[in-house]
């Protein structure tokens, strides 16, 4: 087992442990911070796999963005029994059944697929190639992305703003 495989297993362990804590922690705030660990581990796996842009994306969007949104969501929901970990878990057997079903489905798909690396796979950094494509062949999509972001911005501001008297 080479050093890269060891590092891969290390990050895999970090993300699995983080996810387990996130699921099992009764306190929602602790679950969010455990999710941070899980997202960080996934970013590390991306980096080991040579997908450097994806790793950065994972950190910027998931660790930096999605987690912040979840944390703000907790701020807004306020004091509930769920947030404080005082609620009783209902429907546990059904939940386990559904989770097991999804897991078996994913595992089956994973085992059936082949993860062959095509002839184009290299260890070259991907970021510059992505930048080149984004500002070359996919320039329209790139500019439209800013329009979509603008739409989301206006939508969010509209939803939150006070009713004008």
């Amino acid at each position, binding site marked *: 087992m080479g050093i890269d495989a060891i590092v891969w297993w290390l990050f895999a362990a970090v993300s699995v442990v983080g996810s387990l804590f996130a699921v099992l922690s009764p306190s929602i705030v602790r679950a969010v911070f455990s999710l941070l660990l899980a997202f960080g581990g996934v970013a590390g796996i991306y980096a080991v796999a040579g997908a450097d842009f994806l790793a950065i994306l994972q950190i910027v969007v998931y660790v930096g963005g999605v987690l912040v949104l979840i944390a703000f969501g907790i701020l807004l929901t306020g004091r509930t029994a769920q947030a404080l970990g005082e609620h009783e878990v209902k429907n546990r057997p059904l939940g386990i059944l559904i989770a097991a079903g999804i897991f078996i489905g994913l595992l089956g798909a994973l085992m059936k697929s082949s993860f062959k690396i095509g002839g184009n796979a290299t260890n070259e950094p991907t970021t510059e190639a992505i*930048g080149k494509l984004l500002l070359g062949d996919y320039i329209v999509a790139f500019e439209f992305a800013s329009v979509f972001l603008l739409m989301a911005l206006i939508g969010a*501001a509209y939803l939150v703003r006070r009713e004008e008297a």
Partner: protein
Amino acid sequence: MDHLLIVAARDNAPVDYLPVFILLLLAVVLSVSQLAISWLLGKRVETNEAKDEPYECGIEADGHAHTRFSVKFYLVAVLFILFDIEVVFLYPWAVHFGGGVPDGVVFETRGELLGFLFAEMAVFLTILFLGWYWVVKKKALDWEEA
């Protein structure tokens, strides 16, 4: 499970990340060692009810820390995410801008390529800052008004 390791077993992939891993390792070692040292050398303090209060003296704490916050915080969070995603687009653009080589077909010189890239990003940023201007004009970020 073998196929999962194929990605990890490729040659020299993590070499570039060695400094990052060293940094991660140092961060973990530093934080763990400081906690361990203070746990080993520190004085054990007996806790009691008063010690566990947020403030040991003064007015007694009332209510709970988990109160609901104004929805305005949500707008701040959403705005942060949007500009966060903007950075995602800036990053490959910046790398391409820094190392971009003209292909000789569309762009003859490096100056032409950089000019085009600059104009594209200017359009991108202008569209987003229109939204920012609108938000500021709408006073959506104005905290003063009751």
